[in-house]
Structures are given as C-alpha cells and as structure tokens.
C-alpha cells in the first residue's frame, strides 16, 4: 500500500523529535528549517538517511542528503515519496 504524505511526515516527525532533538514535545513545524535553523547537524542527515532506508525502504543517495533537499520536514517527505 502506498504511503500518504501525512503518514511519511508523521513517522519522520516522530523520529526527528525522539532521536535527533531528544525532545518529544518540541512543536516542530512542517516548514521549519532543521539544518539551517541549527536544530540538527550533518551527522543527523546520515541518521535520517538510514531511518528512511529501514522505515520506507527508500535509499536516498549521499549526494541528495543536502540542505537544499532535506532542510524541512516537508522537503524530507517529498524526497521520500520521490523514491
């Protein structure tokens, strides 16, 4: 069954808040800048890459794990859905 954008965002949000921000109650917005906003670092992008592999079976190449592609929850969801 194909995942909806909301499902993807829900799982990504849960992972980011618990594993990357260590703050499950943080009110993360869909368009909030995670990397340029200083909330996560480049190692976190590697964690996102591995999480997406295991949770959605989608491989995002290292060269796509960039600020331009992955700065917000919305952008991450788009990249996951692009396959």
């Amino acid at each position, binding site marked *: 069954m194909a995942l909806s954008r909301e499902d993807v965002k829900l799982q990504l949000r849960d992972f980011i808040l618990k594993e990357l*921000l260590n703050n499950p109650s943080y009110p993360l917005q869909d368009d909030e800048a995670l990397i340029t906003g200083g909330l996560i670092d480049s190692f976190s992008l590697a964690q996102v890459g591995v999480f997406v592999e295991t949770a959605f079976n989608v491989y995002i190449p290292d060269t796509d794990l960039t600020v331009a592609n992955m700065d917000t929850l919305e952008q991450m969801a788009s990249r996951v859905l692009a396959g």
Partner: protein
Amino acid sequence: MSITTLTFAGFVLLVLAVYYILPHRFQNAWLLTASYVFYLTFTWQFSAILVVMTLVNYWLARWLEQAERRKKALLWIGIGFNLAVLAFLKYAGYFVAQFTARLNSSGEPGALAILLPVGLSFTVVQAISYLVDVSRKQTQASTRPVDFALYFAYFPKLTSGPIERARTFLPLLAQPRRVDNRAIAENFTRIVVGLVRKMILANAFTALAPTSVLQDPSSSSPLALMAWLVAYAFAIYNDFAGYTSIARGVSGLIGIELSPNFEAPYFSRNFTEFWNRWHISLSNWLRDYIYLPISRALLRRNPSRGNIANLIVPPIVTMLVSALWHEAALHMLIWGLLHGIYQVVERIPSLRGPLIPVQKLPRWRQVAGALVVFVLAALAWLPFRASLPEAGRFLAALATNWPLLPSTSWMGLAGVTAMLVPALALDALQAHSGELVFLRWPRLVQAGLLAGVILAVFLVSQTYLNVPTFVYQGF
C-alpha cells in the same frame, strides 16, 4: 601564469574577445584550447598528464555506464587509477625529494624530485566524484569529449578549484551562455574583491607572518607569536578566498557560474559552521563521498547516536582524508586530527539533551563561540604551516617566554591589528549585506573605491617584488 599578473589579464581579454564572437558550437573548443595554453605556461608535462587523465576517465565512465556486470570492480579500478596518479606524482614526489635531500650534502631536494602538477589534487577529486556518480546513475557518462575535457581543464578553476561536480558543470557547458551588463558588473566586482584579498590583505598578512619566526620562535615574545598566528590565519584565508573570487569572476565573464568557496569562515560560532563556510566545495565533496558513506555504514550496524564509533570515526576519518588530500606529511595529519577532535567534542552535548540552535543562543555566547573557534582554528594552522619540530618549538616559546614583551612585539601586534580592521570589515560587509553589496552603493562611491583599489594594488605590486604564489596552488 599567475592569475594576479597583467599577463593573465591580457590572456583573459584575448580569450573573451574571441569567445564572445564565436557561435556556441565553437565556444567550448575555444575555451579548451585556451585552458591548455594556460596550463602549458606551467610546464608541458602537466598538460600531458591532464590529457591522459581525461582520456582514461572519459572511457572508464562510458564503460562503467554500459557494463552490466562487475560495475563495482570497474569503479574501483577508476578510483584506484586516479589515486595512483595522485600518489605517484604527489606523495612519491615528496618521498623522493626527502630521499635525495638526504643523499645530497646540501640537504636540498635533488634532481630526482618528481614534478607535482599544479592543481592535480583538485582534478583527482573531480574525477573520483564523476566516476562514483556515473556508477550510481546520478549522472550520465559524457558523450561529448570536448565538454568533458573542458570539465577537467577549464582554466579559471584548473589550479585551485572550486571543485565542481560533473552533474552540475557539464550541463552548463551544453547550454548557450549569455553575459549581460549585469553579469559583467557582478563578475568584475568579484575580480576586484579577489585582488583586494590577495594583493592587499593576504600579502600584508603574509609579510606579518614571516617564516623566520618558525625557524627561531624563542627569540619572539608570546605576544609576537600570537600576532604571527593571527596574521597567518588571515593570510591563508585571504589568499585562497582571493583566488576563488578572481576565478569566479573570470568564469562569470564567460557565462559559467562557479561554486562559492568561502562565507566569512572566521565568524563561525562552532566547527560545523566553520566547515560549512571554509573551502565549501571541498567540504561538500568530503561530506558526500567520505563522511556520509562512513556514517551510514556505521549507523546500519548500530543506529545509536551515542555509539562511540558513530561519534568518533566519521569526523576523524574525514578530516584525516582532508589532511592527506592537502599533503602526505605527519604535520598535516596532526592538523586534520585536531579538526576531527574539535568536531567530536562539539557533538558530545547533543548526546545528552536537545540542541539549542546557535543563532538562538545569547549574543555573548555567539561571540564567545566565534572567538573559541578562531583561536582553535588558528592553533591548528600551526601544524598546517610548520613541520612538527617547528610547531613544537613555537608552542614551547608561546608557553614559556612570559612575561617578555619587547617593543618589537608591539610593532607586530600593531601591524596585525591595523590589517585586521579592513579584513574584518570586508568580511562583515559581505556576510551581512551579500557578496556583491558594493553594486548597491552610489556610482560616485563605487568609482572612488575602484580608483583607490587600483592605486593600492599598483602600489603593492611595486612594493612586493615577489608576490607569493597562491598557497592552494601547491595542492
């Protein structure tokens, strides 16, 4: 041919004059010819090596793309070939030079020393990323030999980058390019800013950080040694940022936009930010082809962020590779190791609790962070510049000569402080208002500024009879 000479200015004008009147289908061939003429001004052997590297990588990529089996083996053959060229010409050259120096009674490197092609390290990393991207199907193998040869040889970026990826650079070569008045103004500004950085700032800071201090640091006071470190930090920055600015300006006049390489790195408030602002094209390359693959491989084994290997291995290995890319020498490895350690230590707080974004920290903590980053980066420049014994003697003198403050140390400090004012002002202006802020100023101010710069560059060129070559041209 140095890019700060009048000869180079004449060469660029000739290239542009012909380039602008040629139809698009001949422009790349003209640029390729010009690039090889530029490279031939160093020595003909460099051009021969570049031709071989171009042909091998062109055919390997075509083969890699069509192969259905043993793709990985082909990729490793390609990476191995490029690394072998680098290892032989760069590292073997180093060891042969050391060996012959030991044989000579004079201690000087002998005639057996192998010639190091200018810009070889830059070409090698571009070749490796091209082959990796083709193998991952992120870019197609080029079928246009002239364009591909130009990707390697393009003269504005040939000797010191920026490091461009084939998947962004080759499409720029395939499409028609338009250079309007706006582009001319912007890129002329980049060239002028680059000349200011190299000819005025870098040369002055280089003069304030003489090699003689490294040879006998005990005769300098700690204050003078600290001034030396600050001067060297700003010399290497303005030298490389100046080169990049000129290269981007020249390329912009051709209609090809090269990547930015620096964004006021000494204003960074932590080391993650520093490496996003210092030699950006190399940092991005290292992140994509070293740091992220290692991080992901480790995370697949153990997804915990706090795992000791996950914490330590990626930054340390990445910075050691960066050090080896610069030079195969123990002192350079220490430079890389220090930067790796800085990044590991910086990440520890994020293991225990939520990260506070650096821009949301109180102003005083941001300033304190920038000062700490600068001091640690400046200390790391010591093993970057000096051999280990020299660096050891320098640190010993820095720690033990207190409270000796001869009047000469105040003179050095005054000189460095005087040069820091324009250097920091230029960075602050560009960081706050954009790289091309000067174009928004009134015409009269622009004209006055340009006249001042031309006069200053002329005076400097008359004062420094031997303008030092660009530091990164040596890599």
